[in-house]
């Protein structure tokens, strides 16, 4: 993905996805410009996490297309068919898209520094000294300069999530996906993670954030999408969507969470 970033950076068209008899995504369209922060809100089970996981092909699509930086994700167009890409190509595409999970998913058998260095070293095959320097710099940036040699279990949830963010950033991604990054945290630890994400947004990172933090969406988000029952019900500037929701479903949801 070395092309100059076209606009929009992420373009999803008519995404459909079923788990067994349940249709989780029922025709979703999404566009996110480079440097934008798009927050996705919606009730649990609405399909917002699935949408996010389709963007780096952790979930396979039943229909539709996702383009990141102009490249079709997970599939290759052959005549009028979409053929799933090889594991090598999917891995290459994923390497350019960072992801942060609700449960952090740090590698518990590795130190913090090893967590951050693993993929740049062995996936990107960058030189070790440079990777080490970058990793230490990133740990400094997420506010954990003294935790390089700690193991994940020695850290609080908020610290673990900040390491997870550093780990994703170490791959120099052009897009970051956040899947409810603060939902598993104790209330007093939510702020430090949101602060890290805010700093990342200020630096111009393109971010898609599935969240329940309406305050974060309002302050940091450039775009807010409300997802319900597998469709994007409403999409727009956060202030407007929050102040004047055009759909009853959005209004009903907001009245419960605000």
């Amino acid at each position: 993905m070395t092309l100059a970033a076209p606009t929009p950076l992420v373009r999803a068209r008519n995404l459909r996805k079923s788990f067994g008899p349940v249709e989780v995504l029922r025709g979703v369209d999404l566009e996110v410009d480079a440097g934008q922060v798009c927050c996705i809100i919606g009730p649990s089970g609405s399909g917002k996490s699935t949408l996010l996981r389709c963007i780096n092909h952790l979930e396979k699509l039943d229909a539709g297309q996702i383009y990141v930086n102009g490249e079709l994700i997970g599939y290759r167009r052959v005549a009028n068919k979409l053929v799933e890409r090889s594991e090598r190509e999917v891995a290459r595409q994923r390497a350019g898209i960072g992801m942060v999970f609700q449960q952090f998913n740090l590698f518990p058998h590795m130190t913090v520094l090893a967590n951050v260095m693993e993929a740049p070293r062995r996936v990107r095959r960058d030189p070790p000294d440079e990777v080490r320097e970058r990793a230490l710099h990133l740990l400094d940036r997420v506010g954990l300069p003294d935790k390089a040699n700690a193991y994940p279990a020695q850290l609080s949830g908020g610290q673990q999530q900040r390491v997870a963010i550093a780990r994703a950033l170490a791959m120099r991604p052009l897009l970051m996906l956040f899947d409810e990054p603060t939902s598993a945290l104790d209330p007093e630890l939510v702020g430090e993670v949101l602060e890290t994400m805010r700093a990342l947004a200020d630096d111009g990172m393109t971010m898609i954030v599935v969240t329940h933090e309406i305050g974060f969406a309002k302050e940091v988000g450039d775009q807010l999408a409300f997802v319900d029952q597998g469709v994007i019900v409403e999409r727009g500037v956060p202030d407007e969507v929050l102040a004047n929701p055009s759909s009853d479903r959005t209004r009903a949801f907001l009245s419960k969470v605000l």
Partner: protein
Amino acid sequence: MSTATLPVADDEEQLAIVRRRSPLRLLGMAVMLVLAAMLVNTLITNERFEWAVVAQYLTVDAVVAGALLTLELTAIAMVLGVLLGIVLAVMRMSRSRLLASTSWGFVWFFRGTPLLIQLIFWFNLSALYPALSLGIPFGPAFVTGSSNAFITPFVAAVLGLSLNEAAYMAEIVRGGLLGVDRGQTEAAQALGMRRLHLLLRIVLPQAMRIIVPPVANQTLSMLKNTSLVSVLGAADLLHSAQIIYSRTYQTVPLLIVAALWYLAMTSVLSVGQYYVERYYRRGDRSVMQL
């Protein structure tokens, strides 16, 4: 509840704590002491143990060579068994029905028949296939040889022990792999790791915590199960002892010699198990000082 009425000791008063006594525990201890005394007594006074003979044969060349063969068979069979077991476990978890059921069939067969039968079977392979050849299936053969020449007692022992071990190991490894959180795989995939990298660097090291204790048990079992190869005439530890006592009729002392060797080797392995387990628990909250 009001504490005001409770009698409270003066601050300076130090009251001694008396722990509860259990008469049953005292009785149990007494019985054990008596039994232990009886055991020591009989070991010393019963001359038929022939401790002098035990000492005489403990380090003779044949016995030491037998112990070395036992260790060699254990090491080879465990290494091959673990490697094949990992392959079988990964096959079993494959999306391909064919691969998964092949693995299942292997485990079903090799776990479901006695090891002794498997060993004798491999030793007698030449009765089924007088000649073995290496070549293209249904096509030309590059090398052909006599089964009798190829299947020595040692080869039959390695084949039987490692294939049998692989069947058990497949289940142990599969349990370990399933015990690693799905999120680990997803996080690794999201970073662009490919299957082999993910298995070797992320999932297997974590599965090892679950896998190592049963593998250590299997290794101890294997060390002792190698004694079955004495039926093939391989000169392992037990067979070496048998050869000697069939000549000298000093059955009990020589069995004690073999038992002492087995005990020594399993003890060393148990110590090794402790360190291996400690290595794979690194990063565990329970073993770290904060």
